[in-house]
């Protein structure tokens, strides 16, 4: 289903339908994450991928056109790059341990330690939150700073800040 949706996103020319299909794509990958018991990731994917980004793409559509321009360039080189990358990735998965295998590196390195220690060190039932906010607090601080920087960047590029100044001037003139 993921593959079918991805092909639909590439083939359809109506950008409105493409936005909807990318939302569906995100929702399907969220379901995949749920199937792998990664509920926190699935939650984020559903909220950000299927929710916010679809809305943002739709508001962007309101600023541009609704239909994609047909590309004039030959698709041979992009197809070649896609197939080589895909083949490399599939070749890489050959060495991966089986799904749910007990001696996979993910189960043997730090995660059993976190699972054992977090209950009495942090006392928080959700281990993901314990790792995210406590053991890896610096990283999350960095992530928050990244989100903040991204927001500032968008405001500077699109000019949300300039409009705010005008709004404030309008409010001041209204107040006085």
């Amino acid at each position, binding site marked *: 289903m993921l593959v079918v949706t991805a092909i639909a996103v590439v083939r359809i020319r109506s950008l409105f339908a493409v936005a909807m299909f990318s939302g569906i794509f995100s929702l399907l990958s969220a379901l995949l994450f749920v199937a792998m018991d990664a509920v926190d990731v699935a939650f984020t994917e559903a909220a950000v991928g299927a929710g*916010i980004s679809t809305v943002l793409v739709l*508001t962007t559509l309101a600023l541009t056109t609704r239909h994609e321009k047909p590309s004039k360039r030959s698709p041979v080189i992009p197809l070649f790059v896609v197939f080589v990358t895909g083949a490399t990735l599939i070749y890489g998965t050959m060495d991966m341990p089986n799904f749910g295998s007990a001696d996979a590196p993910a189960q043997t390195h730090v995660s059993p330690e976190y699972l054992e220690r977090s209950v009495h060190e942090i006392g*928080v039932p959700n281990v993901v939150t314990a790792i*995210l*906010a406590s053991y890896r*607090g610096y990283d999350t601080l960095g992530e928050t700073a990244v*989100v*903040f920087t991204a927001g500032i960047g968008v*405001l500077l590029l699109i000019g949300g800040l300039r409009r*705010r100044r005008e709004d404030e001037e309008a409010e001041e003139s209204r107040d006085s």
Partner: protein
Amino acid sequence: MRHHLILRVVTKMLVGTIILFAFYVQFHGDFSPGGGFQAGVIMAVAFIIYGVVFGLDEVQQVFPAWIVHKLLALGVLIYAGTGFVSLFLGYSFLDYGAFTPAHPVHGQHYGILAVELGVGVTVTGVMVAVYYAFAGRTPQLSDEEW
């Protein structure tokens, strides 16, 4: 979207529920899936859906742009401030045991709540600010070109 009666009524009913759910995800993140990032996004969605249905001016009366821009920085300040509080209490940066020295595990709870709140505030601010920035631009195409 003045003429979409069903959309407007359903949105009015949903916005409150969405905000409530965002707070649940925010403050229940220790016990169930979720946390600041997800809660911030859900909170922002409540304002964005209101803006999509009722128009940008309506939502900016509820949640003015200058408050959103302050929230961007406030979240990072809450997060980093939590770190500095623990630093000044004589513990290392972001060591939440500092808040209740007698019972470090409780301190972890408070610390996680505080930093998740910071994350949530920043994410809400960024998402709503990005939406305002996009939706606030005047469409460059006239209606006939649609």
